[in-house]
């Protein structure tokens, strides 16, 4: 049996007190100084851990509190009240919600799967990825406890082209030459960050994490990334080629931005390095479906389709969501009998581990992530950096080792969640999950099937 893929996690505390969800209020006036003080019996000891950072103006109790409400209920005079911290609700935006940000912080700090023990109070369906329900039919299986232990569930994917069939000569010898494939142990590649006060250290942290995890970073190459050259997919724009960085031509995979002259560029690379798979970065526009097919025919091995940070289609008046786009591209390739000739990776709006599984169900082979990496490095997605203001968590001053460990912790938590999802579906290979749309239910389809006959087609913006 091959060695199991294991990710080494280490608790990596944040440098700044994170913005917590709770607003614990302790009135004090009227305190009886009784012997049954609720603050001393806190299960998590948050009142003892409580500190106030006078420079950040942050009260750590709001972060440590686990919402058990024990103190609120057990203070004899009812002097403790809890509510939600308004600063917490202001984080992020409609897509990158405070809950996503804070759960990413937790995963980056501990490397553990986030568990919400206080019950789920939210809706069961929503927009985007939230209108997909994945199959959990095998969740009651007795060996389920083995998915992190005895059973081996593989999360590796292959990057590159696969042959549609094999050819043999008259003597039965294989004559078709298998194309080179690059295997990565996680269906996740790191991508270029769309914002932030970015500098060398941040990219070094990400590159180090990619190296230690055995995955790749797709990035415009810079000289300082050279030590991690084996785990870099250099994006060779014209500007980079002019800079004459020798080492980038030795990379295992070579990336190109999509352009009018892409065909010539691919041919040039294929002549120089026939064994290296070529990745093309393509925006998800209304023309994406045709372009992916065309690129596949022109010999591209990997297509990286990207939407905006909210997962919306680009250059469109009524943008569709990334999952619909990927589904369309996947089915189109299947119809043309060329799905296996190309590896499809998608990025944009991938915010949680479940999104990885869901986009793979929709037909992608893997994902490229960007913003979750930044959030793992404590980013609050306040977007102040886009206005040219300073970063509230001084992200430019991180230590590369600390940053790399936070990213590794996050990936370990995501890996654990992927195992949970695959285990619950009874799958042992994430490669088998690709395009398994029968393993998911789509709310909009169900609504149409069940209620369409009674109420007619849904009108309005849907």
């Amino acid at each position, binding site marked *: 049996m091959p060695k199991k893929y294991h990710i080494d996690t280490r608790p990596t505390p944040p440098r700044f007190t994170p913005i917590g969800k709770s607003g614990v*209020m302790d*009135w004090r006036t009227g305190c009886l100084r009784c012997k049954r003080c609720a603050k001393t019996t806190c299960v998590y000891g948050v009142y003892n851990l409580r500190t106030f950072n006078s420079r950040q*103006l942050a*009260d750590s109790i709001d972060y440590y509190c686990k919402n058990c409400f024990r103190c609120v209920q057990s203070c004899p005079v009812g002097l403790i009240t809890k*509510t939600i*911290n*308004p*600063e917490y609700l*202001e984080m992020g935006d409609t897509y990158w919600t405070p809950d996503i940000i804070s759960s990413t912080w937790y995963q980056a700090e501990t490397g553990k799967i986030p568990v919400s023990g206080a019950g789920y109070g939210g809706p069961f369906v929503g927009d985007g990825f939230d209108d997909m329900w994945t199959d959990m039919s095998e969740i009651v299986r007795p060996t389920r406890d083995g998915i992190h232990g005895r059973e081996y569930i593989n999360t590796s994917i292959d990057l590159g082209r696969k042959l549609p069939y094999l050819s043999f000569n008259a003597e039965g010898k294989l004559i078709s030459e298998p194309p080179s494939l690059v295997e990565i142990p996680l269906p996740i590649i790191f991508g270029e960050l769309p914002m932030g006060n970015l500098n060398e250290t941040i990219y070094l942290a990400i590159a180090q994490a990619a190296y230690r995890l055995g995955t790749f970073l797709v990035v415009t190459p810079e000289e300082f990334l050279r030590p991690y050259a084996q785990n870099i997919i250099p994006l060779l724009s014209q500007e980079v080629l002019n800079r004459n960085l020798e080492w980038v031509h030795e990379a295992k995979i070579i990336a190109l931005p999509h352009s009018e002259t892409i065909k010539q560029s691919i041919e040039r690379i294929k002549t120089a390095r026939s064994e290296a798979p070529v990745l093309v970065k393509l925006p998800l526009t209304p023309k994406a479906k045709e372009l992916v097919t065309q690129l596949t025919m022109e010999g591209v091995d990997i297509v990286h389709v990207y939407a905006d940070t909210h997962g919306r289609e680009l250059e469109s008046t009524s943008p569709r969501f990334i999952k619909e786009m990927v589904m369309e591209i996947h089915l189109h390739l299947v119809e043309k009998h060329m799905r296996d000739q190309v590896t499809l990776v998608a990025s944009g709006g991938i915010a949680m581990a479940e999104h990885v599984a869901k986009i793979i169900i929709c037909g992608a082979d893997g994902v490229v992530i960007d913003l979750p990496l930044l959030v793992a490095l404590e980013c609050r997605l306040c977007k102040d950096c886009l206005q040219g203001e300073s970063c509230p968590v001084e992200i430019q001053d991180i230590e590369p080792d600390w940053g790399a460990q936070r990213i590794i912790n996050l990936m370990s938590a995501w890996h654990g969640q992927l195992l949970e999802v695959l285990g619950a579906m009874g799958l042992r290979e994430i490669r088998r999950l690709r395009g398994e749309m029968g393993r998911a239910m789509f709310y909009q389809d169900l609504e149409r099937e069940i209620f369409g006959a009674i109420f007619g087609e849904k009108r309005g913006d849907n």
Partner: protein
Amino acid sequence: MIGIHKKQVVIFFCQNMGYKKADLGQLLRLPHNVSTRFVELPCSGKIEPQFLLKIFETGIDAIFVLGCLDGTCHHVEGNRKMRKRVQYLKDILGEIDMDRDRLEMFQISSDPELDIEHVVSEIDKRITSLSPSPLK
């Protein structure tokens, strides 16, 4: 580069007053040479007295707490408790020979009928007249 003598002010405000950070910035018409940090609280009574002293320790020139009007506190008496804390802390500031005017609580609301001009001018007056914090 921020000037060394730029005054630093922290303003805590209750979320139930109906203002957001941007509204308050506009409303209070703070002078440009003052660096202000607004902190939104679930209730003005959330902030503990020792934390206010810790903030003064870092060299902040003034702290203002904006709470709701009497009788309108969402948490029934959070604003009243905060007012008492502020009075208590002002006494402490006096005892340690710091200007009592560095800390104040104002009770306002976003009711358009309510005239808060006196609050705006009082904050302005305090900020302009204060000398740099001795703890800087």
